[in-house]
């Protein structure tokens, strides 16, 4: 019973791992840059939702309608100010340069968050925060279930965009072979810009969903970047639903470990999974390329 209850909670948090990873996977897969400030962007999204809720009493799920576009704009700005210079470099040096820029950005955003919101833990506590769906003896928090469904719906929408829309296809083509994409007449820089902004918006949405069920503070960034990285290694690049499934697997694995090993080992389990997958199946469970 305890295991079943933990597994439910693991599933629910896993969806958010998946959403966080999908954004990172998109920027990594398309631009070949690793934005280690992804977790900090998620944190900003969380604070955005927190602000809208505490200042104007806007429901957190409604506030995503404002947070997502705002984060999209922030993504445009960050690409324009920082990452456009990284993608001009040769592909091998892109990762290294993006790590440096990402770490710098991490520090800046972390400091700004402390300045604006102090180092205290914050949470969005709605009137319906305690509502629970009873399934036999098991309790499923409505908020987290709604978040999971939100995460899934957003990934589905993004998947459809990438599969069908003209610019969605342009992003996929650029990810596969940017030179060939350029020869098709695709402005590769614009495809990069769009992918980066979408990745940032995904981080923001994930942050908003995190803020309704879990605490946010200026220092949660690194933890979420790590989770997203573990999920990307677990799932492989190239599939949004792969990321989602990978996130859920990580959530379930953590939940299992809490039952059998105790809470303190939760973080370790993810990293052990990370190592096993790297050794046994380096392209990831659902990945098509290395």
């Amino acid at each position, binding site marked *: 019973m305890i295991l079943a209850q933990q597994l439910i909670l693991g599933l629910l948090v896993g969806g958010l791992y998946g959403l966080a990873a999908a954004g990172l996977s998109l920027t990594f897969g398309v631009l070949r840059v690793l934005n280690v400030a992804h977790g900090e962007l998620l944190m900003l999204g969380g604070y955005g939702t927190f602000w809208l809720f505490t200042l104007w009493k806007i429901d957190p799920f409604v506030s995503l309608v404002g947070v997502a576009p705002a984060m999209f704009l922030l993504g445009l700005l960050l690409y324009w100010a920082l990452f456009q210079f990284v993608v001009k470099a040769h592909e091998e040096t892109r990762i290294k340069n993006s790590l440096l820029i990402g770490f710098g950005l991490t520090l800046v955003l972390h400091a700004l968050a402390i300045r604006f919101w102090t180092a205290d833990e914050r949470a969005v506590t709605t009137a319906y925060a305690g509502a629970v769906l009873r399934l036999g003896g098991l309790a499923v928090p409505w908020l987290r279930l709604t978040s999971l469904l939100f995460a899934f719906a957003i990934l589905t929408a993004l998947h459809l965009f990438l599969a069908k829309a*003209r610019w969605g*296809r*342009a992003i996929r*083509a650029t990810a596969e072979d940017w030179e060939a994409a*350029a020869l098709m*007449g695709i402005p590769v820089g614009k495809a990069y810009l769009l992918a980066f902004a979408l990745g940032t918006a995904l981080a923001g949405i994930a942050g908003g969903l995190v803020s309704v069920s879990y605490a946010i503070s200026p220092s949660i960034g690194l933890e979420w970047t790590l989770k997203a990285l573990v999920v990307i290694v677990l799932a492989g690049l190239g599939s949004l639903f792969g990321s989602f499934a990978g996130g859920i697997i990580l959530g379930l694995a953590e939940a299992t470990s809490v039952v059998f090993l105790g809470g303190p080992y939760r973080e370790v389990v993810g990293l052990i999974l990370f190592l096993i997958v790297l050794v046994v199946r380096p392209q990831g469970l659902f990945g098509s390329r290395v």
Partner: protein
Amino acid sequence: MLEIKNLQVAYGPLLALHGVDMIVRPGEMVALVGPNGAGKSTLLKTISGLLRPRAGAIRWQDETIDTAPPQRIVERGIALVPEGRRLFAAMTVRENLELGAFTERAQQKKRAQMERIFALFPRLFERQQQTAGLLSGGEQQMLALSRALMSLPRLLLLDEPSLGLAPKIVESIFAVLIELHRDGMGVLIVEQNVHAVLELVQRAYILEGGRIVGEGEGRYLLDDDHVRAAYLGPLARGTS
């Protein structure tokens, strides 16, 4: 008309093209031959905008295009079928073709052009839902050519279209090129298969070590001593 004057292209400190002069008249079919490493692919990539020249000029229909980005050059009507085909292997045949028509100009005539291409290559029509990476080599080259045609080019650049293909398939691809040429399209083709290509084209340039060392009518070059010795003789057969 494509006009290239004193074109120099460098990779870092290494000069790959040492001042190339060349023209392709409207609707003309021209070959560019030469040994490996002569700079043939470099020249095509520079015309397409993938590489920036260090000096010199490229003019196309009275517009200077040597600093234009690739998307503008495609929009203006020059398309490259790159070496190694460079298809979007994870996507379907149809998606590849639709991406070929990405520019505004091509978007408007996408349906009609796709029908033309399916008439040209019925094989692609049958396989339109198949993943491009799973096609045979010949089909992949047909798709690469068709994808470039989707952009409605007036000048088609081809980099080694016959590489690794069976002679029968090469023949059918060359036949399509002749048909396109008859409809008024300009063609600039880089080929290792020198004998076949010199019979195909009206004019050819010989590029060696980044310099144009010869130019003439295709059939005339077939009888040229230097060309015979370097590209058509028994010693050259292994590489050509």
